[in-house]
């Protein structure tokens, strides 16, 4: 079971719902392995508690692991204390490790 790595570089203020929908439906299927949504660049913006964070929280409830690139967060002055609890700040190494692990990787 290879699982999926979905890298989201665009923020959901611009309309990323189809990629989030994909993450949700892949997680529901479960038999293909775990699904991780890795937020980078402007993709981290909704991780700072705001109205758009609800989409991320809902994804986490649906079984999607949500990680956010520490550098992208710092670049945008999003302190860890401002993150919704469902998002974990990590080094970009985590995305690389998932690639090395063999996750099917899609970039949006």
């Amino acid at each position, binding site marked *: 079971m290879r699982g*999926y790595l979905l890298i989201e570089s665009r923020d959901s203020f611009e309309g990323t719902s*189809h990629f989030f*929908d*994909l993450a949700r*439906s*892949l997680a*529901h*299927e479960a*038999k*293909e392995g775990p699904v991780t949504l890795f937020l980078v660049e402007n993709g981290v913006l909704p991780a700072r508690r705001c109205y758009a964070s609800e989409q991320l929280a809902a994804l986490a409830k649906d079984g999607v692991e949500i990680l956010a690139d520490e550098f992208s967060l710092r670049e945008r002055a999003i302190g860890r204390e401002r993150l919704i609890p469902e998002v974990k700040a990590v080094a970009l190494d985590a995305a690389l490790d998932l690639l090395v692990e063999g996750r*099917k*990787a*899609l*970039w*949006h």
Partner: protein
Amino acid sequence: MPKKILHIVESAYRATIEEQDDTVLWFTHAMKGAGADVSVLLRGNAVNYAVEGQDASGLSFGARKQTQPPRLDADVAKLASKGVEVFYIAEDAQARGLQATDLIGGPKSLAKNELPGLLARFDLVFHW
């Protein structure tokens, strides 16, 4: 056994006049020609690539006329004729006011909820 590859094409009409084609469809053709086992899923605005009768002809810049405008519907049809399975997301087509009769023959309709099953068939999924 070659790896089974799915190209999800979302970006549409990006530099298609300058390039005289869609560079991701072109890339898919080239990979197929090199022996790839590749399929295509059109989503978002790219579902419009399957619409019959797209016409980008007639442009000129000063005296420089474009003699080979893109023919995206033909490029999609050619993929299908080369044995590349082409799908499109039904809901995206519907959202854009498209009916099956607007489209060229060949591409297969796929509902969004069928996506996990489709992706599971492939070793690699490239999202363009």
